[in-house]
């Protein structure tokens, strides 16, 4: 009786222990997998390392020696030396796995238990397909807008021709009635000279206005938005994924040019992220350029190709603009001139000044973007003392010192309004930007 009870209690305790152990086991497996394995392995996808789903069965079926999988995780080189199957696995990819000598067999089992619980990613496919449809429908909407113009044009043409037809018919009617009215254009114009004069005046005025407005647009590129080889979504990269502008445009604080990222910068993330739906084709263009094939854990062929991007912000050759001077020394945020790229869904473009003014923290300007007036206006307003020159302002300290030594009244004049702007330090000198 006592024995039986003891046995029952024992079984109960063992089951309870196993259950709790399994629960904590799976949790432990998840945390170890995420911190140690997920860098190179995924449950259902080959990455740097092969997919791990049901890898224990796979090794067993492949004819691996018992326990050599655990040995592999702890130190793959030892396993490859003793087990021929492990040797085969070692040839799967040229990259060497990190050794995890501190993991126990139980912990390794916990990792594999966690991995085997992961469902196949099937639900994601439907979502991405829906996303693709949405994109397609917005595209056709844009096309519809284009068609409206053609339809409107056609309607106007029909109206014009029909009006002309009516006019001719009326004339014929008049002639048929036997009244000999010669609708000579000169006579007609003379008779209606008041109306003709007014219309003529309007036409001339419209023409002159159109010419002046047109001339003002020469060399001003507001709205320029060239199509690019890859329609890059800035809102996804800088917005949702919080990547700093200067990670990809990494010479913005070091050099004259902000830099278009080379595809090796793209590959730092896209080696893993292969995209869904319509993203796949775009990301394939990166792979082609980098000479990368994502199959079998990813291999570089070494045959690279340039992607030819279209330059958006064009400055004439006689203008010198330096990004590092503005970003590093002046402490200007990228959005002051480029707009808020974290929300830019379309291709990058020249942003009109009205939109730049709406962004919080921007200096309010009035002149059109990329005109000389725009630069000059900002140089007249931007305070140097509010920039981060403290601590790295050897150059500006020197200017202040020289001003004090040479002409103290001039320096006091500068400080009269309580601030030092860029123009007071020579930001309006011709040779600063023209050479």
């Amino acid at each position: 009786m006592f024995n039986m009870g003891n046995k029952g209690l024992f079984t109960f305790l063992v089951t309870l222990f196993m259950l709790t152990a399994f629960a904590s086991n799976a949790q432990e497996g998840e945390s170890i997998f995420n911190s140690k394995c997920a860098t190179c392995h995924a449950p259902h996808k080959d990455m740097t390392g092969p997919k791990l789903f049901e890898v224990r069965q796979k090794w067993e079926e492949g004819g691996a020696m018992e326990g050599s999988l655990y040995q592999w995780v702890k130190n793959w080189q030892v396993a490859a030396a003793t087990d021929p199957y492990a040797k085969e696995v070692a040839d799967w990819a040229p990259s060497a796995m990190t050794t995890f000598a501190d993991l126990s067999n139980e912990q390794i089992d916990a990792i594999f238990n966690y991995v085997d619980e992961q469902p196949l990613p099937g639900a994601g496919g439907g979502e991405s397909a829906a996303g693709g449809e949405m994109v397609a429908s917005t595209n056709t909407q844009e096309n519809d807008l284009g068609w409206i113009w053609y339809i409107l044009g056609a309607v106007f043409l029909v109206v014009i021709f029909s009006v002309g037809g009516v006019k001719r018919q009326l004339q014929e009617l008049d002639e048929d009635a036997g009244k000999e009215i010669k609708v000579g254009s000169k006579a007609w114009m003379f008779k209606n000279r008041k109306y003709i004069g007014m219309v003529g005046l309007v036409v001339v005025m419209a023409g002159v206005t159109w010419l002046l407005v047109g001339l003002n647009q020469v060399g001003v590129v507001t709205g320029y938005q060239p199509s690019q080889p890859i329609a890059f979504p800035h809102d996804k990269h800088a917005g949702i994924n919080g990547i700093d502008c200067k990670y990809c445009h990494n010479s913005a604080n070091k050099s004259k040019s902000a830099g278009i990222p080379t595809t090796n910068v793209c590959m730092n993330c896209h080696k893993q992220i292969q995209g869904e739906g319509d993203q796949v084709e775009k990301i394939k263009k990166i792979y082609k350029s980098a000479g990368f094939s994502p199959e079998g854990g990813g291999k570089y062929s070494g045959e690279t190709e340039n992607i030819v991007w279209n330059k958006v912000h064009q400055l004439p050759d006689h203008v010198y603009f330096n990004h590092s001077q503005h970003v590093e020394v002046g402490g200007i945020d990228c959005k002051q001139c480029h707009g808020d790229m974290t929300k830019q869904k379309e291709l990058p473009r020249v942003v009109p000044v009205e939109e730049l003014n709406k962004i919080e923290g921007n200096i309010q300007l009035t002149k059109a973007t990329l005109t000389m007036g725009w630069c000059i206006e900002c140089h007249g307003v931007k305070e140097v003392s509010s920039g981060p020159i403290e601590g790295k302002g050897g150059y500006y300290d020197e200017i202040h010192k020289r001003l004090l030594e040479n002409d103290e009244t001039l320096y006091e004049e500068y400080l009269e309004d309580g601030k030092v702007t860029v123009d007071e330090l020579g930001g309006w000198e011709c040779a600063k930007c023209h050479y």
Partner: protein
Amino acid sequence: MKKNIVAISKRTFVLTLGVFTLFSCVSDSDSPGLEFMPDMYRSPAIETYVDYGWVKEEINVEAMMTASAKHPPIHTIPYHGKVEDLSLYLPYHRKANSFAPVTHGLQEKHGWNLSTEAGGDYFIAAEDKNPIELTSDNEKDIFKKGKELFNINCAHCHGEKGDGKGPMVESGAYLGVPDFKNLKNLPDGQVFYSIYYGKGMMGAHAPLLNKKEIWTVVHHINKLRLDDYGAGSVQEEVVSDSSTVEEAN
């Protein structure tokens, strides 16, 4: 009847004018618009990202691909700065592992220093010490610069606290970023090696950061993963410093 003709012809005229005005407003976003003197935009002085393949309406593919935005010449040192830092601009003496061309795309033709061994110099790199020494005078500036560089170049994956939970990981786009707290025993030299040549899924960051910047970032990473790192207790100093500055002002 004549009045009708006048009225109709007037309307026709206005309509035609209107149609032309409307059509003239439809602009092409692929065209930068009129240029006053196109040759002022494309001059013989080579500028980055200007398409020199396009000259006088003829396209030269060779010039388009090679005339601007080039690699610096192989085995040259980009040097700008103080003489004391010169050694930091010399090439990195540790070699990348032999499979780096396949796994990380580091080709010898682009100037990468490759080893013939599968392990590369990763294990020897553990001996390397950080050449930027922390003193109680410079550590505030170094930590500030390191944090700035880390937030630009690393934080989107590794997180601002180095816990592996950056916005890329939080949004679900990228997986498998380690927590620096789990890598407390990793020597500085290997941290540098991994940033320079890349490791696992992470690509080589040598094209983005020079050696001086990487060593500065290593200081910041050490501050994130080790509890008391630095020459003095910097956190209290920063607080007292800023308050004294404010008082002085």
